[in-house]
């Protein structure tokens, strides 16, 4: 079902939707950005149209809804274990741009399919989540979703476009339950779009090209020489300051550590928690006794790069795509202006040069 609606109708619809679902969408926080006088945009529960940041990409990805920054996995009270219940039992809709929907599907692969069994904590919230699409046509400065083949997606139940018949909001609904909720709206004629506008046709569009384009290495086996090429990676040894911001803002970074804590006031009460871990930050690969497998920032950059654009696809298969979806957040947020898309291009150029020279 497709319909062009007024902001009033949208809010009524969201009101009804909120009875059944928690709705998460990007929200702008004035002046809270990393740099002075900058805003930050992150995902929060929303109820009305005006709360939502429609125009810009969110600083942080929506992944923390399904994979929180920090999460208690077990509560310990004396010698008893308690598994915390979920905060809300309501099903969830997340309004996302196509790259982010694809990003969540990338981390699904790790939490649900990698290893001997599913991740209980991820699965129990993931099962409650459905996707809604925020139409994205032009992308933003650092996006390269088209190159990553992550610019399109059809796994959403409803999609919203603001660009078709401004000031009307275009909504396409593919899910019968949501359509029923939509039709259950009771409004008076003064608040709704006139039928000739309401029923005008439209197509939800996707980005077809980005300002940034990356060439992916076109090889089946990454040559061993590139791993140890210090000339190539050393640029990041000092330039990267290991702040981990590229990992925390990335929609597909899914690593975590497990820590136990004891509350100060009582030795008997504590918890085991899971917290985001960053492969750029020291200790990620440190073993007991202090030996660290990747000590310098160059090898950590190499590790992340291959994870994002080589290892993941190699492990999970062609049809799953690369882990990186080209959302560009790593480039948006790096305080050292390190561009990941540039690294990918440099890597591909270096590999093709090697191939042309007949090196292995």
């Amino acid at each position, binding site marked *: 079902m497709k319909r062009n609606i007024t902001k009033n109708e949208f809010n009524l619809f969201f009101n009804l939707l909120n009875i059944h679902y928690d709705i998460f969408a990007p929200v702008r926080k004035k002046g809270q950005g990393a740099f002075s006088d900058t805003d930050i945009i992150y995902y929060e529960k929303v109820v009305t149209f005006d709360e939502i940041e429609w125009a810009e990409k969110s600083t942080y990805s929506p992944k923390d809804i399904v994979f929180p920054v920090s999460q208690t996995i077990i509560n310990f009270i004396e010698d008893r274990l308690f598994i915390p219940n979920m905060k809300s039992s309501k099903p969830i809709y997340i309004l996302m741009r196509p790259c982010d929907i694809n990003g969540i599907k990338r981390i699904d692969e790790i939490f649900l399919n990698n290893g*001997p069994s599913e991740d209980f904590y991820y699965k129990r919230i993931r099962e409650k989540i459905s996707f809604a699409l925020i139409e994205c046509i032009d992308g933003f400065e650092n996006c390269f979703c088209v190159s990553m083949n992550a610019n399109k997606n059809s796994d959403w139940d409803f999609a919203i476009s603001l660009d078709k018949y401004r000031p009307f909001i275009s909504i396409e609904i593919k899910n019968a339950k949501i359509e029923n909720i939509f039709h259950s709206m009771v409004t008076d004629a003064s608040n709704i779009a006139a039928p000739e506008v309401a029923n005008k046709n439209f197509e939800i569009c996707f980005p077809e090209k980005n300002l940034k384009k990356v060439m992916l290495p076109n090889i089946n086996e990454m040559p061993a020489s590139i791993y140890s090429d210090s000339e190539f990676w050393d640029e990041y040894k000092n330039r990267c300051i290991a702040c981990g911001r590229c990992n925390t803002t990335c929609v597909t970074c899914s690593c975590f550590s497990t820590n136990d804590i*004891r509350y100060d006031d009582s030795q008997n009460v504590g918890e085991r928690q899971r917290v985001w871990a960053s492969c750029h930050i020291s200790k990620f690969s440190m073993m007991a006794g202090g030996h660290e497998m990747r000590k310098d920032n160059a090898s950590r950059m190499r590790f992340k790069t291959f994870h994002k654009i080589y290892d993941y696809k190699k492990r999970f298969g062609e049809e799953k795509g690369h882990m990186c979806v080209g959302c560009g957040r790593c480039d948006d947020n790096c305080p050292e202006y390190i561009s990941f898309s540039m690294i990918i291009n440099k890597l591909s150029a270096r590999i093709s040069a090697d191939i042309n020279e007949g090196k292995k």
Partner: protein
Amino acid sequence: MINQTYDANNIFIPVPHKIMDIITETEIDKTYRLNLNVAGLPSYGQFYEVSLPKIGEAPISVSDFEKDWIDLTIRKIGTLTNCIHSLKIGDVLYLRGPYGNFFPVDSFAGKHLVIAAGGCGLAPVRSVINYFYRNLEKLAKFELLMGFKTINDLLFKYDIDRWEKKFKSIITLDHGCDLWADRPVGLITDYVGQVDFSDKENICVIIVGPPVMIKFTADKFVAAGIKKENIIVSMERRMSCGVGKCGHCKIDSTYICCDGPVFTYERAERFID
């Protein structure tokens, strides 16, 4: 004791296991024998995620097992392992697992098996050695090379005494001493030459120990004509979840916790961290 929201699919719930016995191996290593009542029976070389509530969790290899018990040999090195070392018989350790792949003991039938273990690397292969101690007839030949830093670092002395009587066992110390007079001294690599290489094609080698020891020992066996695919190693990496989720143990497209820790040297040699 776990509350009602406990879900059988939640693999992160650790289960308490009673300590039946504690053997002090060295000043920093103790072997804990646990009553295996709940967790699944392990295979040779697998590991458990071992924890103490409110203290921490760590991967620990099974150093031996029977139907109803498992041994864990734990080195005191940090927060959790320090606490474990203060436990007494009758206390409990929390386990989840067993995880990881294992040494393919059945595939060694009829082979000439050589095991080279350095230091606490002996723990994950002790169950394999004891299996063939009991079933020596399954092998064409069995040889054991073990290396320790000093005489005070010897692990499983009570086992080694039995092993030495039944098959060739070379024990070398990096640093000898009066008590070790006339016995092998030097690195384990110096003793690879003493292996019987007369039936090269039939030899399988297991190497466990610190990364450098694995590399140099494997290179010696390769130089002696053993194929890399017939050399099996067990690897240690930083782990948190043990089940392919947390990403800490990943090397290239491999997750050591669930694809390993046991690999052929042919594969392990190509890992770049």
